């Protein structure tokens, strides 16, 4: 299963990871090799097998909707790369 450079570029866009030309080529090769290993699964008959998403037999977990103190604003913003009057500041979203 060989990926094309365009496919790698598309995945990088979906994942929002910037890439150089060299990165694209390296990942194209490495991801293609890894995907090849996955072909072993094609031979497994799973027609009547339900999927396992996780191994604890839990469905939705509910709790009472009760108000309780959360982190202070100072704590929440303490790690913010850019902060402005109690808000997270981001780069322009619309051009």
């Amino acid at each position, binding site marked *: 299963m060989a990926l094309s450079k365009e496919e*790698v570029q598309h*995945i*990088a866009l*979906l*994942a*929002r*990871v*910037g*890439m150089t030309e060299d*990165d694209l080529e390296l*990942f194209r090769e*490495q*991801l293609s*090799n*890894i*995907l090849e*290993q*996955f072909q*072993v*699964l094609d031979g*497994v008959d*799973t027609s009547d*097998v*339900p*999927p*396992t*998403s*996780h*191994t*604890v037999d*839990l469905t939705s*977990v509910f*709790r009472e909707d009760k108000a309780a103190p959360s*982190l202070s604003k100072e*704590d*929440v913003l*303490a*790690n*913010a*790369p*850019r902060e402005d009057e109690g808000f*997270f500041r*981001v*780069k*322009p*979203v619309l*051009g």
Partner: protein
Amino acid sequence: MATSRPLHELTLHDARDLLQTRQISSVELTRAVLERVDAVDERVKAYVTVSGEAALKQAGDADRAIGAGASGPLTGVPMMLKDNMCTRGLRTTCSSRMLEQFVPPYDAHVTERLRSAGAVLLGKGNMDEFAMGSSTENSAFFPTHNPWDLERVPGGSSGGPGAAVAAGEAVYALGSDTGGSIRQPASLCGVVGLKPTYGLVSRYGLVAFGSSLDQIGPLTKDVTDSALVLNAIAGHDPKDSTSARYAPPDYTKALASGIKGLRIGVPKEYLVEGIQEEVVEVMERALSKLEELGAQVDREVSLPHTRYALAVYYIIAPSEASANLARYDGVKYGYSAQDADDMWDAMEKTRQYGFGPEVKRRIMLGTYALSAGYYDAYYLKAQKVRTLIRRDFEKAFEKYDVLVAPTSPTVPFKLGDKMSDPVQMYLSDICTIPVNIAGIPSISVPAGFSFGLPIGMQIMGRPFGEEAIFRTAYAYEQATGWHNLRAPL
């Protein structure tokens, strides 16, 4: 002082005995271990952050608690946390540039549990970036070295914790295990590593990697210590919605009951191609020992879907990782690229420079496996085969109390040996991955050496069958004594 060993070599239970009888103080013990860190960590590189001053303050508090008679088995004993468990006020990096400056505003559930048990936190352990790797060479800061041979890897991703415990730089440590990240470094460093049943230990405050696979557990110098630490961290936590509603027993009570008549199965699929001969020999001797101790060992057990486990894991774990790591956008915390024109550009640059190559590889792989048109072929297919792997174990546990296999197919390999080929590196986890896929518990114990390099054996149990694996591990440990050897640093 009534010990023939230097203080930094003490086990947790020995330290506990000496502290409770006031033969040593926590400050004295903590100083001794910090001096050990000063003496050897330049060569081992197990720590990302050492918090010596805070540790000594906690040790002083612990001494006062012991003096007042208000103490437990963990009180005053210095330990390390892998650097993916949140510690309020102490940076938690995941060995990534992305979180290099991140100081958590809260404690992980396990951190909180250990703090209230009076544990002394020495600092944070090096790891493969975001726990992705099998050698700790993927740390963005520096690789960790194996205390038994400094030119070799300590395993990963909990290589810092494994190396620290083996080198006497912490009495015990907590690691996390998504595909073997506690057991494989335990095997390579000659210490005991436990991956508990999925859901037994809360993941609240553990930086998420593969949420359906991640589990926290102890790396210790012996099996008794492992049970003591598990006692302190196991149990339901409402802040983790996958935490099991299960009341854990006192695990130390399971230790001394022996293994006469215990039914042990050896899955033959774990002993095929790619396994080093010395690992097979060590396993054979260990099985004979277990028979000598009265267990019934069946060497012909089959878990037929084992050969699919690696592919299943490398679809499911990266898929979950790609979703979990979407949160690193450079806005709320963490590294943030500032030389950008707009929000999307900033995000792409942040993730380009903030993540290392293996993390990017897994994000890309997971994004691909979950993307339109490929979801059924990869992710859904992997989840279905996951069911088949679980069923293999369920069937085997109808006949056997525990299953025994090598932990790692090889002895510790040389630094740099597998870095250029991701597929070769992934094969390091071939013996440990099925356990995470099935959500069952497994412990790795030292089982022998080859030319001075440790080899581990893992004992797998039923879901919430920690007592049976502790019992087996303890009987084997007491009959062999491998755990008494210390790395010659």
